[in-house]
């Protein structure tokens, strides 16, 4: 529960000064080092490093290949509910954003139909999402959803509102592998400005949530900053510190990072700090050199052509064929979407693009046998019987 202390020791002006002070020789030194210091990270996030992208890319490519091989994991999100009690100015799920489309929470039977549709594509790794609404999707509901999804997929993760450690433990006991929780922004003032209602307003409770998930036994911990809310150089610096902190505190969990860019926002929210493609590449490379063992998730928020080119630059997991609407795979109802995806290719097309890039698309990288639940035992008997 000490990441707040770490964060407080790196206030925006201190990080800003460090980044501004970096000269070309600092970038050179960072590129020559085997293990990077926070000063090196700042140098690689600085404008000075923008001229060294090709060198950084070569190093990042080599480090990623050594750690992860030439493989890309495939996953798909399942939106369980678009009912949301928070008011995030940038999000289409917020009531105050004035979005159209039906709001609903999937029933257990509907969750099954979504799972069946996705399992037919070959997915073995799914991410279950809800809005920030414990009323619409309480813990019991989440536990049931995890148990259902586990009947269909080897790996189930959640991206839901921040839970207590006990809450996460209940989901882990039902077979949950991973927890994704984006801080959105690590800048406290910006955080307060864009989050206007609900439990999500509690900055510290959200900041500590991913560590609670790790202590509860989640094996994959995924963090992220929503790029566009604040200066990306600072956001990425803080996120990198957070990842390194989690690697030490939750040493049995694999840490991964996401860098979603806010591309479209509701009319009331103007994107103050847009991030260009070139800047996105720079921040990915800086992160990879600082954190060689951390996974990189790349969602369908990004364009298909850009995603294909980012594959060799450190990406380890990609979503494919995603819908951000509850029921978007099997129910055929025009429910409200969280955001419009840019890469609308089918999972098969994305897998083919990964192969064309010289990588092996990996559908399965976990196994039900890791977790023992009542359900597992029943399934195992079934699977064995089927084989006979």
């Amino acid at each position: 529960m000490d990441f707040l202390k770490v964060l407080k020791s790196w206030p925006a002006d201190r990080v800003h000064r460090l980044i501004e002070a970096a000269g070309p020789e600092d970038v050179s030194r960072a590129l020559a080092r085997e293990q990077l210091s926070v000063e090196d990270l700042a140098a690689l996030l600085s404008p000075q490093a923008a001229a060294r992208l090709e060198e950084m890319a070569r190093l990042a490519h080599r480090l990623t290949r050594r750690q992860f091989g030439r493989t890309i994991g495939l996953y798909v999100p399942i939106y369980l509910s678009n009912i949301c009690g928070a008011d995030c100015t940038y999000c289409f799920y917020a009531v105050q954003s004035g979005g159209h489309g039906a709001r609903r929470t999937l029933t257990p039977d509907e969750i099954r139909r979504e799972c069946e549709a996705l399992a037919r594509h070959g997915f073995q790794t799914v991410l279950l999402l809800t809005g920030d609404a414990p009323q619409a999707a309480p813990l019991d509901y989440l536990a049931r959803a995890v148990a259902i999804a586990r009947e269909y997929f080897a790996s189930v993760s959640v991206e839901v509102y921040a839970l207590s450690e006990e809450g996460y433990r209940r989901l882990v006991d039902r077979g949950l592998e991973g927890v994704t929780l984006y801080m959105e922004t690590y800048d406290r003032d910006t955080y307060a400005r864009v989050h206007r209602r609900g439990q999500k307003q509690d900055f510290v409770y959200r900041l500590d949530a991913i560590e609670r998930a790790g202590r509860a036994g989640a094996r994959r911990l995924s963090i992220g900053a929503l790029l566009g809310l604040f200066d990306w150089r600072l956001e990425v610096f803080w996120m990198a510190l957070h990842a390194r902190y989690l690697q030490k505190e939750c040493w049995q969990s694999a840490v991964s990072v996401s860098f979603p860019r806010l591309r479209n926002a509701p009319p009331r929210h103007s994107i103050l700090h847009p991030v260009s493609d070139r800047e996105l590449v720079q921040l990915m490379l800086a992160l990879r050199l600082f954190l060689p063992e951390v996974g990189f998730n790349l969602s369908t928020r990004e364009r298909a052509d850009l995603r294909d080119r980012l594959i060799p630059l450190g990406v380890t997991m990609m979503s494919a064929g995603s819908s951000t609407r509850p029921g978007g795979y099997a129910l055929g109802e025009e429910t409200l979407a969280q955001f419009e995806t840019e890469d609308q290719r089918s999972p098969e097309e994305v897998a083919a693009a990964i192969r064309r890039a010289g990588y092996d698309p990996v559908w399965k990288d976990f196994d039900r046998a890791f977790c023992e639940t009542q359900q597992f035992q029943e399934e195992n008997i079934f699977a064995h019987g089927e084989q006979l």
Partner: protein
Amino acid sequence: MNQGNQVSESPQKLISQINNLTTDDPLVIAGRAFRSRFMVGTGKFPSAEALRAALAASGAEIVTVALRRVDLAKPQTDSIMSVLDPGRHLILPNTSGARTAEEAVRLARMARAMGLMPWVKLELTPEPKYLLPDPVETLRAAEMLIKEGFVVLPYIQADPVLAKRLEELGTATVMPLGAPIGSNRGVRTRDMIRIIIEQSKVPVVVDAGLGAPSHAAEAMEMGADAVLVNTALADAADHGGMAQAFAMAVIAGRLAYRAGLGPVREEAAASSPLTGFLE
């Protein structure tokens, strides 16, 4: 005559011929004899074709697969399982990613229930960053699996006492690491591996960290019974070529070990002995 082309056209034949140099010297694990002392891991390859090329050129008979990664229910569509030939390869499932003995045991049972041989490469790697083995859980899992009739090949830190403890429990081999998985750093644990080889009554397989054929040769020259390589093959530009190079290095190292290497000298041997006056 173009030797280079001949080699690349029939790597399998070449390695088979080279393996014949040591037919009188098989690797015996749990009573089963193997001609090849080169084991191959199947992770991280860019495609099924790349893996196929590496396996063919390696001449490997023992091939390890991560149970977390492969889909044993649908082997025909799995990019790893579809390449393996149960007639030629002993498929050695590994429990990579298991954090506790119980998890490793469950994975091993699952593999056996799905029809694999009851052999298991025990990998208790609770931390995902360096994938280092947990000695406490490894010992516990080995005991549980041996009781259930599994042939156990444990991946361990290069710890000579742990190696003896596992041998006493009845593991079929010990598999100490040369360096962290994927690091390509070579036999960094050389001094401890030397002690393990000296003391061990079961085959010693140097696993992890071997990044170049010279590293494999070094381990074999020291008297290791076999080596296991994965990342160096998966990451090569020419997967078959690199597998062949490793296979040859493994044989060369073995032959050198059997031939008896001379001691390494720090200075030239003195031409007039210091104790000559005693004659």
